[in-house]
């Protein structure tokens, strides 16, 4: 005889099974989505790293002998640095950051390198030429 107790037990068992099944399913789904997002992010960041490193290497050569060219491109480089820093902030705030840390660090270093290149343009073409002490010291060294 199908008593109310059996019915309760049946519904209870079914509910428990659904809870277990759905929680397992959603956990698995969540994991898959997380891994997919991590892979996609890593892929995108790696694409940017390749472009940044190529640009940085070219810039080191480009800024070597042309003051006009270096100062001309400096504003564009500052815009690029600003954009890259925004992306750095986005990466650090993202919930997947722990999963992409090693790739992100390489990108952060590429951004630091760009910042150094901009500083070098200022150092080489603005600060040092205006620094009389450095130029006097070099003249004294030559006299020695």
């Amino acid at each position, binding site marked *: 005889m199908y008593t109310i107790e059996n019915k309760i037990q049946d519904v209870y068992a079914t509910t428990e099974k659904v809870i277990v099944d759905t929680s397992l399913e959603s956990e698995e789904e969540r994991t898959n989505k997380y891994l997919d997002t991590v892979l996609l992010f890593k892929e995108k960041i790696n694409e940017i790293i390749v472009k940044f*490193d190529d640009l*940085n290497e070219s810039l*080191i*050569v480009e*800024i*070597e002998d042309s003051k006009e060219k270096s100062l001309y491109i400096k504003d564009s480089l500052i815009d690029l640095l600003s954009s890259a820093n925004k992306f750095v902030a986005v990466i650090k705030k993202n919930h997947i950051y722990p999963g992409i840390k090693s790739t992100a660090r390489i990108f952060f*270093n*590429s951004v*630091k*390198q760009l*910042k*150094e290149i901009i*500083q*070098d343009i200022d*150092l*080489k073409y603005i*600060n*040092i*030429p205006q*620094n009389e*002490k*450095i*130029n006097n*010291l*070099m*003249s*004294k*060294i*030559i006299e*020695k």
Partner: protein
Amino acid sequence: MDYYCTSDFENSVNLLCKKPKDGYSKCRTDIKDFFHFKQFNELWNTPTKLNEIFPLRIIKTRLSNSSLNVGKSSGYRIIYLINSETHDLTFLHIFPKTGKYGVENISDKELEKLLETFLSEKSKNALIKLDMSKYA
């Protein structure tokens, strides 16, 4: 060509090499690997040329850090003074870009101090002569 360094440079290298856990212990080897077999012209023309008053150039260049297994961009920066008449090269300063002693860059004020040290030690014949073949 002859290689020299200032006491500032030597002190920095000693500090970097002191503790292997800091990730700079192969610093001397990295310096030797970069400089030992290079010809004068290559070192004279290495970027980045920070300043030039003939026959002197101040160069800031990038070295990889084999202890941390990182390339040039995240490795060391070395500042050296090179003389195209005497073919002398003097190391003025070294700093790592990353790790415990990581530094962003050098300023013109710091460069002033490095040149003052160089001038003072050169006047006293106190620059340290380096044998690159044994530098490690």
